[in-house]
């Protein structure tokens, strides 16, 4: 399979996808760092989850990890 | 006319009875101090008046309309400051008040004006911080602001001064006093000084009943024990003094003697005319050559009345 030509063909899909995933990750990451009052878990754990688990990680953080006072 | 009528209301939580046939009338236009010890049921009573709790027995009327548990129409005319007010932490104080002003129907221009006034009144003007960063005292101030924002006919405040520093407490009491005539205020407290300063009426809640409900003046007249305070210097012989005073009790001139050791004082209770009692008292002291350094006719304090009532 020709990787380069595949990438070039699908840039209109890949570029926005990467940007969006990155935005999501950064949004969650900033929140994790700025609000260290989690319902459970540690800062390190949530940073790991948010960065490694694309899509699901940030959602999990906002649903289960984020402290109530926000 | 009474804006609040609590008629024979009982309230139990499980097997624990908090209110037991409570009657309470709050005259329209008054500032009503609602006094009682911790756990007496003040918060519960207020929640019942606002339909936030369900009565076990009895009816409550606000502005002549019956209060129903849950959604109640009577809340149209009320404003409430809970003991621990809760807000939306993501809003600023001004945004929160704007929201409150919107749904209570204040027109835009009036709303802006009121919010500005109210924020200044409680000392939160120009504060752009989100509420999540507020201290307990700031939340209390915002709580006061939201409760009085739309000039409710009936303002109910639950221990409003307890989270404030002495200065804030003073300001708040003055604020409440300045609202007199504009709205009826029911506020609970365990600080009797607050009541004495600004209230026209006082109700004392104890053991699920209102032990006292009257104007402050009338209360002082009914409940005041007549007392005289005598102070001596160290040299005084207290055993002779006490024997002498006990003799006066025998003769039914005075009713009770209480000795306060550290201060070389005695407090004498009596139920006859002051001039007669003081005359006899001084004569017998002169006869025994025990001279007080001071003699004072004690004015009844709300504190002593309160202690008397709940005894």
């Amino acid at each position: 399979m020709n990787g380069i030509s595949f990438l070039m063909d699908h840039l209109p899909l890949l570029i926005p996808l990467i940007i969006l995933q990155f935005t999501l990750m950064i949004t969650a990451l900033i929140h994790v760092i700025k609000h260290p009052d989690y319902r459970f878990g540690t800062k390190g754990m949530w940073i790991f989850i948010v960065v490694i688990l694309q899509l699901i990680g940030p959602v999990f953080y906002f649903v289960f990890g984020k402290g109530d006072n926000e | 006319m009474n804006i609040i009528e609590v008629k024979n209301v009982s309230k139990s939580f499980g097997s624990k009875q908090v209110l037991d046939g409570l009657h309470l009338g709050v005259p329209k236009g008054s500032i009503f101090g609602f006094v009682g010890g911790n756990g007496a049921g003040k918060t519960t009573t207020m929640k019942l008046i606002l339909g936030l709790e369900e009565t076990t027995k009895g009816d409550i009327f606000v502005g002549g309309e019956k209060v129903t548990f849950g959604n109640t129409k009577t809340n149209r005319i009320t404003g409430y400051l809970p003991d621990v007010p809760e807000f939306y932490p993501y809003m600023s104080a001004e945004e929160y008040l704007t929201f409150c002003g919107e749904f209570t129907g204040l027109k835009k221009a009036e709303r802006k004006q009121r919010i500005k006034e109210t924020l200044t009144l409680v000392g939160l003007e120009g504060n752009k911080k989100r509420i999540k960063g507020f201290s307990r005292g700031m939340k209390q101030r915002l709580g006061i602001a939201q409760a009085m924002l739309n000039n409710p006919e009936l303002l109910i405040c639950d221990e409003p001064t307890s989270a404030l520093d002495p200065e804030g407490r003073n300001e708040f009491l003055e604020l409440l006093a300045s609202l007199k005539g504009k709205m009826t205020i029911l506020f609970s407290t365990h600080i009797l000084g607050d009541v004495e300063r600004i209230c026209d009426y006082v109700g004392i809640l104890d053991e699920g009943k209102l032990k006292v409900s009257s104007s402050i003046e009338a209360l002082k007249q009914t409940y005041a024990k007549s007392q005289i305070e005598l102070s001596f210097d160290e040299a005084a012989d207290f055993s002779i003094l006490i024997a002498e005073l006990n003799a006066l009790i025998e003769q039914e001139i005075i009713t009770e003697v209480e000795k306060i050791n550290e201060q070389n004082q005695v407090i004498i209770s009596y139920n006859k005319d002051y001039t007669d009692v003081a005359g006899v008292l001084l004569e017998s002291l002169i006869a025994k050559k025990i001279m007080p350094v001071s003699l004072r006719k004690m004015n009844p304090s709300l504190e002593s009345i309160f202690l008397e009532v709940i005894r």
Partner: protein
Amino acid sequence: MKNIYYFSKKEFLESWRTSRLLILMIIFLILGIMNPLIAILTPDIIQMSFGDSLPVNIPEPTSLDSWGQFYQNMTQMGLIVITLLFSGTMSGEVSKGTLINLVTKGLKRSTVVISKSIYLILQWSFCMLLAFFVTWAYTLYYFTDDNSPHVFLAVFPLWIFGILLITTILLTSTVSKNSYEGLLLTGGFVVLLFVMNIFDKFERYNPITLTSENINFLQGASNIGNYMPAMLISFFLSLLFIYLSIVILNKKKL
């Protein structure tokens, strides 16, 4: 009436300031892009995992594969994320006591329920359309076949089902103490729908059909009229759930 607008505005602000709206928008956009992408990549992935040993030719992906992904992702990811993020919408307010200041000023409790449902439905519609138009645009660009004529007709039932799910979230969150309980109850309701789907007799009436037959609607292979009963039932269930939420909140200790 005006108060419904004011309270919905508060819901919007809440969703925005707590980052939930942003998260939803990003996720639905990502889903919108992923649908055509996965459809395009699937043959390559199969090819790679089987090597050249695969005896049959893998058919070229079509627009139907892209839309197939859309309906799968919308239900398995989109609706689940919405449920996760909003399952505490009422129980949170009740347990924190944030409604006390408001109702003691005369705000009707029914206003709270109606505003929340209106806001959540608007938010669902917006997010669904976001993913829908992104998928549609890419599908038109990458797949030039005309296998998928009825795009709007196919997505309409999904929208109706989303509304049912939202009113379910509202009701379960009104009866629950916290968001976990609400989540559990909502999950239970969906499982119940799936279980009922085992019986063919109920198929036309079961709201879950609205999320499983969309590809047939899309091709025109299935007449949407057949599923009118399921849509009407969803609609009336939604109204019932809103009504029940009001009744329950009206007598709830705040």
